[in-house]
């Protein structure tokens, strides 16, 4: 027999104390959604079942005790730290879910400059860690747009990536070791070693699990020397995305590692660079690291770009100003929220990846289809911001006016059909439907298509680590 809300709350209070269990309706409403449903939320409409409680855990033992209870009683758990998710991963789609919030576990446990690694609790804001590291001349190398708000646990759980990824890699390249708690309350620690060949790399069961397999409580990441004085920024305008992709490919294929390698289409470029883009594509690089490497990388990129006469170099100060305003903070979020309410215009993004030989085709097909098929669009464009030896990502940006529909219909009328076009075209071309925001709850309909025959492995992980299905139902895996 399942517990009712009052019983769940009562037991939670016994486990972690009354101060840690929040049941105020406003908190529960805000905790039933993430940014995917912000149009509804901004209009005071909450369509998801409200969780029974939000529990602010203080330590790993709290997490273990709550998960053990949930596992025994069949209570759905939604793990959370910074609450910046964009794909519905934090939606409480099951009645009487418990949101397990780790943001109070925010201690930087150890910074170890000799072994070049830092260990933090899951609720440590990335900005806090980064600020501490920079005071002593180091950096995480991780700089997602959400850096001022996102916390380490969530960043690892969603396989986050940052704007300097072409040099430093995604979070999966940075994580050294972890502590995580599984659905039965089992606390596991993966030690911090440079590399090992002792079987499969089990870190990857945890990294990117989106709270569907376990709860991340502690993270150890690599750190790097911070040498911004050596940074070299380069910017160009050009006519065609195809040329931009070719340049990105050549830079990667020739073995250069700029930290930033970004290509904007004219629409997305106009949004960010209207003062110089002049309706053209924009290509941006930043070389960093030791002075000689940064200089050599920048020089080599200039040689590669020079082969394409359509590229026109822009004054570096344009790029420097852009670079100084990369991230979103609470002020930006507040401004965005008021603008959405006033204008009924809302923007979202969908990020995918594909090999070099397919990326331009995906870009052109998706842009064309969205323009033709989705009503009331005010902007559709995109940029590539993370490149690899065998391909790159595309970050589609789509804004629309919400017209003639209720707030709760915005997703079905606009957002979901948009995402469907991008996801289906990407999978059809052999790419991946999720580059760095995670699957959440709104790309699960395509998860089997994404994985093909390898879905067996993904499915078996769920059966093994969450046999009762209490971990963030409907995220990554379709709801049972």
């Amino acid at each position, binding site marked *: 027999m399942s517990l009712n809300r009052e019983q769940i709350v009562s037991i939670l209070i016994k486990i972690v104390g009354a101060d840690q269990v929040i049941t105020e309706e406003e908190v529960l409403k805000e905790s039933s959604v993430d940014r995917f449903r912000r149009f509804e939320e901004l209009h005071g409409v909450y369509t998801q079942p409200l969780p029974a409680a939000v529990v602010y855990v203080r330590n790993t033992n709290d997490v273990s005790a709550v998960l053990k209870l949930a596992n025994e009683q069949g209570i759905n758990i939604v793990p959370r730290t910074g609450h910046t998710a964009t794909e519905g991963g934090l939606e409480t789609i099951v009645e009487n879910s418990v949101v397990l919030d780790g943001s109070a576990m925010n201690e930087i446990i150890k910074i170890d400059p000799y072994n070049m690694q830092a260990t933090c609790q899951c609720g440590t804001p990335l900005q806090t860690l980064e600020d501490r590291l920079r005071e002593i001349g180091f950096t995480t190398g991780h700089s997602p747009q959400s850096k001022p708000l996102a916390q380490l646990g969530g960043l690892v759980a969603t396989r986050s990536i940052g704007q300097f990824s072409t040099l430093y890699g995604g979070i999966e390249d940075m994580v050294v070791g972890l502590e995580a708690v599984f659905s039965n309350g089992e606390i596991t620690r993966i030690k911090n070693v440079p590399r090992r060949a002792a079987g499969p790399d089990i870190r990857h069961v945890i990294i990117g699990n989106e709270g569907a397999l376990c709860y991340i409580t502690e993270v150890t990441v690599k750190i790097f020397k911070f040498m911004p004085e050596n940074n070299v920024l380069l910017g160009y305008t050009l006519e065609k995305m195809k040329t931009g992709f070719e340049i990105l490919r050549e830079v990667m294929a020739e073995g250069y590692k700029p930290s930033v390698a970004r290509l904007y289409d004219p629409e997305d470029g106009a949004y*960010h660079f209207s*003062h110089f883009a002049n309706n053209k594509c924009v290509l941006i690089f930043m070389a960093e690291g030791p002075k000689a490497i940064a200089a050599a990388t920048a020089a080599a990129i200039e040689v590669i770009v020079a082969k394409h006469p359509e590229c026109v170099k822009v004054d570096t100060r344009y790029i420097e100003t852009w670079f100084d*305003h990369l991230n979103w903070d609470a002020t930006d979020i507040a401004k965005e929220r*008021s603008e959405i309410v*006033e204008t009924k215009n809302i923007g979202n993004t969908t990020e995918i990846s594909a090999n070099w030989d397919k990326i331009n085709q995906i870009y052109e097909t998706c842009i064309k289809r969205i323009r033709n098929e989705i009503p009331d*669009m*005010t*902007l*559709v464009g995109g940029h590539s911001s993370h490149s690899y030896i065998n391909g790159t990502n595309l970050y589609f940006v789509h804004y629309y*006016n919400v017209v003639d529909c209720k707030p709760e219909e915005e997703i079905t009328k606009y957002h979901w059909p948009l995402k469907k076009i991008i996801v289906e075209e990407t999978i059809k071309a052999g790419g991946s439907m999720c580059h760095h925001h995670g699957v959440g709850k709104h790309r699960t309909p395509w998860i089997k298509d994404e994985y093909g025959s390898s879905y067996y492995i993904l499915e078996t992980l769920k059966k093994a680590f969450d046999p009762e299905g209490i971990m963030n139902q409907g995220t990554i895996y379709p709801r049972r």
Partner: protein
Amino acid sequence: MNVLVCFKVVPDLDQLSGSDWVVDGCSRVETRFVKRMINPYDESALELALKMADQARGSGVTLGLNSLTIADSGANLTLKSLRALGYQEAVRIEADRDLEFAPEDVAALIAAYVLSTDPLELIMMGRQSGVGDNAKTPLLIAELLRWPCITQVIAVEKDAAGTYLVTAMADEGVVTRIIEPPCVLAIGNAPSSTLRVPTLRAIKEQSAIAVKTYAAAELISTSPTLPVNPGAELLTLEVVNRNRGGLIIEGADATEKAQILYQSYLKGWLAEL
């Protein structure tokens, strides 16, 4: 046309970092490298006019809207976007020199345009701009045209009688007046006035239609009065240090910190009041 809304495209000064606020020897802060935006007060004016047109349409009245800027051709995209939003006309005056600190000349150009076009009922514009922040232009236009001017306007509606209901902030609070046109409205901190966004389809429909452009020299010859002696002349710029002091109150808990805040700071200030 019933209403002319004047606007200015300006650099987004929030994007300037502290080190950018360095005067480069020619009486100018370098803003070329930051994004452009519609001056926020002008943006409010543009949106209030659209709201007024929506409201009038609901009452069966068609309100003709015209938009005007003094800028180079880089502003054409904004003007076309305004047409896509419902402005029937979009006009650009091409200046032959920098008018950033010349509100008298800006006012003269706008007044000359107003006198050269069909009769208007209202001119709306932001009360000031972050760049060349003089807060004089709407008042000067009113003076040149010999129209009344209402400042700090936060809302405007057209009523069935052909008059306008203008709501403005005043020292004593919020005042709503019924006015007979013509009038210049200087828009202040109007709530809920973020400019709406045109659809791609609407922009496409406007993209091939040219923006009506005037040369400043052509208009200025018809200006009612040319200022002979501007009230102010920019001689130098200097950085004003506006840093605020700050103190972190140390205490065992929130109660203790609140006590310290009250006893050490607020109590004295309140007593003075």
